[in-house]
C-alpha cells in the first residue's frame, strides 16, 4: 500500500498590504538593502578608478624604477604584478658594469621561482647558480646596453628580489680588488 502524502493546513503566513493583499513586502529590509547597494556601487567605482591608476597592477602606479649610485644599473620593473600575467623588467647597464667586454649580472632566485622568469633577451652567454641566485654573463660591444627579463609570476604574494653587477672600477696593474658590488633590492606585490 502506498504511503499517504503528508499534508499541512494552509496558513495565512505571507504579510499583507492594506490588510488584504498578501505580498510579503519587507520595507525595513529593503531600506537596508538600498544602503548596502550604495556602498557596493561606491566600492565598484573606487575599484575601477584604482585599477585605471594601476594600484592593482598594469598601470602608472605600478611602474617602478631604481638605480645604483654609480650608474652601473638602471632597472625598470612593475612593483605590482598580477598572477600569471606577463610583464617585462628592463635592466640598463652603464659603462661601469662592463668588464672585459662582458657584463656579469647576479639575480636572486625569486626572479626565476616566484616571479617566474620565462626568458631573457638577449640570451646570456652563460648562467651559473650560486649565492642564492643565478649569475648571468652577457657579452657586450658597447654600453649602455640593456637586458630584458620576461616575467610571469607563478603565485600571488609579496616577494623580494635582488640584482647586482660586478663593477669595473679596479685599477689595472695594481692588483687591487674591485669594490663590493652595489646590490639593488625591491619588493614586488603579485595580485591574485
Amino acid at each position, binding site marked *: 500500500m502506498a504511503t499517504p502524502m503528508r499534508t499541512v493546513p494552509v496558513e495565512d503566513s505571507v504579510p499583507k*498590504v*492594506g490588510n488584504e*493583499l498578501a*505580498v*510579503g*513586502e*519587507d*520595507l525595513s*529590509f*529593503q531600506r537596508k*538593502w*538600498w544602503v548596502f*547597494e550604495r556602498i*557596493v*556601487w561606491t566600492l565598484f567605482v573606487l575599484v575601477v578608478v584604482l585599477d585605471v591608476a594601476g594600484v592593482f597592477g598594469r598601470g602608472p602606479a605600478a611602474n617602478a624604477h631604481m638605480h645604483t649610485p654609480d650608474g652601473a644599473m638602471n632597472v625598470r620593473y612593475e612593483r605590482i604584478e598580477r598572477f*600569471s600575467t606577463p610583464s617585462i623588467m628592463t635592466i640598463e647597464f652603464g659603462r661601469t658594469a662592463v668588464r672585459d667586454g662582458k657584463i656579469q649580472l647576479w639575480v636572486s632566485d625569486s626572479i626565476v621561482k616566484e616571479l617566474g622568469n620565462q626568458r631573457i633577451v638577449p640570451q646570456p652567454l652563460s648562467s651559473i647558480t650560486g649565492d642564492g641566485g643565478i649569475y648571468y654573463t652577457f657579452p657586450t660591444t658597447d654600453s649602455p646596453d640593456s637586458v630584458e627579463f620576461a616575467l610571469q609570476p607563478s603565485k600571488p604574494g609579496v616577494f623580494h628580489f635582488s640584482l647586482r653587477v660586478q663593477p669595473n672600477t679596479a685599477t689595472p696593474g695594481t692588483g687591487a680588488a674591485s669594490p663590493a658590488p652595489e646590490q639593488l633590492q625591491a619588493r614586488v606585490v603579485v595580485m591574485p
Partner: protein
Amino acid sequence: MYTILHAVLGYFFLLLTIRVLSRRPGAQLTPFEFVIVFLVGGVIILTTVGDDKSVTNCVCAIIAVVLLHRLVALLRSYFPRIGAVVDGAPLVLLEDGQWRKQVMDRMRVDDTDVMAAARVKGVRDLTGIKYAVLERNGGISIIKAEQP
C-alpha cells in the same frame, strides 16, 4: 583546488553583481541585459578555468558551481532572510491610487512600466489599478480596482 576556489569566489561575486543591478521591470532579459550576462559570465570563466583546459578541470568547476547553487537554494528555503538577500523581496509600487515614490525611484520603475503591465491585464488606465507589485523576478503584478 584553485579551480574550486575560483569557482566559489566567481559564483558569489557574480551573485552580488547581478543582485545589486536593480531589477528591470518586465521580467524578460532585454538585449541590453544580455550584454551584461554574456560579458560578465565570459570574464568569470577566464579566471575560473585559467590555463587548465582539461576536461577534469571543467567538470570539477561545473560540479563546484552546481553544488554551491544547491547549497544556497537550501539555505534560502530554511532562512527567509537569505532568500531576500539572494532574490530580493516583492515591493508595492502603487497602493489605492497612491504611488510609492521612494520605491519607484530606487527601483527605477516609472508609471509607463506599470501601465504596460496593466494593459496586459486589460486595464485601460492607472485609475483601474488597486495594487501594482514589483515581483522578485522583475515582473509587475497588477490587482485591478473594483468597478463601482
